[in-house]
């Protein structure tokens, strides 16, 4: 009965979506803000990748909050999952292929991740993407050798300090009367590695933060899964 009603409502929703779609004036949409940013970003922020300019510059506050969400999710997850039970029986160790692959991939992933982070202001990619790769790099050995504990201390330290440094960089501008999250340092040559002021630093913080959060979350889930 309930499903039937739901299906009826879905039908109605479908019709409504179609109506919204039909009424939308697709041509009318002009990215007024986007175009303005495209025009001004190179000079205002100095990053060749305008998306990065937006992510860390124009909408840096969003990014900070987003990091906070990840952090919150990890904290809340930790709260929910609690401490894994001590008497948990670890999963059997993985096979040779996985172990060898993990060993092989670990440095590779590390390097790729860092590269992506550091070039975030120049090319597609950035702290988030790189951070995920870093997380995988650290999580892979965990899959291969379930017994080895990941250093929670280290993870939480990185997590905390990386997040804090993002804020601190943002705050640094304030004593000079500037607003929070104002890009600092010299903008440099557009397109070079050391350009766009403090953006790369922020991206490093983001990368580390994302990497550690994800790794931590995955590890926690895995540990809980194993403990039952």
């Amino acid at each position, binding site marked *: 009965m309930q499903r039937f009603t739901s299906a009826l409502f879905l039908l109605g929703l479908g019709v409504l979506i179609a109506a919204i779609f039909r*009424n939308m004036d697709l041509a009318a949409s002009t990215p*007024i803000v986007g175009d303005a940013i495209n025009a001004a970003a190179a000079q205002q922020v100095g990053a060749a990748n305008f998306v990065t300019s937006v992510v860390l510059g124009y909408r840096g506050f969003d990014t900070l909050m987003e990091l*906070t969400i990840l952090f*919150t999710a990890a904290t*809340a997850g*930790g*709260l*929910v999952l609690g401490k894994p039970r001590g008497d948990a029986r670890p999963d059997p160790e993985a096979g040779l292929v996985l172990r060898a692959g993990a060993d092989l991939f670990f440095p590779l992933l590390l390097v790729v991740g860092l590269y992506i982070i550091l070039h975030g202001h120049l090319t597609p990619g950035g702290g988030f993407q790189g951070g995920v790769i870093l997380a995988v790099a650290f999580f892979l050995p965990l899959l291969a050798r379930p017994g080895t504990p990941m250093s929670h201390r280290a993870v939480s330290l990185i997590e*905390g300090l990386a997040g804090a440094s993002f804020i601190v960089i943002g705050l640094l501008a304030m004593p000079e009367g*500037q607003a929070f999250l104002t890009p600092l340092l010299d903008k440099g040559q557009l397109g070079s590695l050391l350009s766009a002021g403090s953006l790369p630093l922020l991206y490093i913080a983001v990368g580390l933060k994302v990497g550690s959060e994800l790794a931590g979350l995955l590890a926690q889930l895995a540990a809980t899964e194993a403990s039952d």
Partner: protein
Amino acid sequence: MNELVLMVALPLLTAFLLPVIDRLSSLAARWIGPLVLLLTAIIGLSAWSQTGSGAITIELGNFRPPLGIDLYVDQLALLFALAVTLGTLLLWPAEGEQRLRQSTLALLLAGSGSGLALSGDLFNIYVLYELIAVVSYGLAASRGTAAGQAATLRYLIVSAFGAALALAGIALVYQATGTLNLAQLAQLAPTQLNNGQGLAAFVLMLVGFGVKAELFPVNTWVPEVYATAPARVAGLLAGVVSKLALLIIVRLLILLFPQPEALTVMLVLGILGVLTGELAAWRARDFNRMLAFSSIGQLGIMFIAFSIPGKAGVFAGLAVALHHLVVKPALFLLAQRWGGSLEHLAGVAKGSPLAAALFILLALSLIGVPPLPGFWAKLLVMIHLLEQQSSLYALGAWIIMAGAALEANYLFRVASSFYRREAAATPPAAHRTGDLAGASLLGAALAAAVFLIVPLADRIEAMAGQAADRDHYIQTVNPEPLP
């Protein structure tokens, strides 16, 4: 004014560093959170007087809006930022072995709540809303019981569903206007959002953000979560977080969607909320769920009030919201020990007379007995509802009245059972000093408001006037004109 950013940044910074600090000194970790909140509250208070004459914007990253994100600081926003900070401080939800994580979440709540109140960018609001949602999931589940986690999960599903729809609504707005800055949107709204698409976007955002504002009927999570979460958390959610979500909706209404259709949707849902909430509360058999349903009813009143067009609606709604902001947390502080079945509360006044007296004071104000502040708020709502000369608004007024009568019945059924001569077999434990002190503080504030009602009303009216003034918002932010 830049330092107001610290109201957001400092709690977040502390939260990030809390695990590190705990490593160094657990005593410091225990105290730094409240201290930081106190500090931010002082920062906020010191800025208070400057916002009286007019609102201010803070252009984050020194980017002129609409390119960058701005914080819009008017008295309303600052008040709510202060409310969330002080509320968190008062209802500091950290206890037990997960103290550290709970403190972290509490700091995050204060920071993100302040941010939400101040933010002047549509997408940023979405992000902050999600942030506060995640914080509340964590806090709601923090008791660690399976029931709490199941309730949180059910909450999460509705909330995430709603948030995704709100995101779709934001996409529709962006499609129509190409900007996300609220001030610029306000400029463009009369031409570009005054159509079906705009209203569809509003509905999606209303429902999405309404989940946290306990909007009927996406509030089914409320009784479950309030019954299973720690009482202080429930107090925070009901008292503070719900108002923040409401604040967003009100901002959207004022700036983006002044169409009568939008108001009517809110009015109807508000009426249904009052009706269902108060009726369900009438039959509730445990303290927490009674408070939960009553909170649904009260939020319904706020929705009704805010659906009155113009400054009057903002004024009336704000009065109810602020009143509830004081009363509900205090009640939940009492629920900390009285959380169980109502039958167990018989004769409890003998053991804890102060708590019983507080409950009565709060209940009196909640149902709107003069001269307590709740009465003035209700009176305002009633006057403005009936001034609309529309039968739907009048219906709202009648429903509010009937709801209040029901509420009087069930609240005083409980209150009078406190004074029954024969006590229950298993009376609840006495309140802890902290809970009682917090509740007393709020109660004292309520009582003090009786004597300060005249200046308070003037302040709130000024605040409402400022908040309801679209042009003031646009001029203050002064978005860069774009082709």
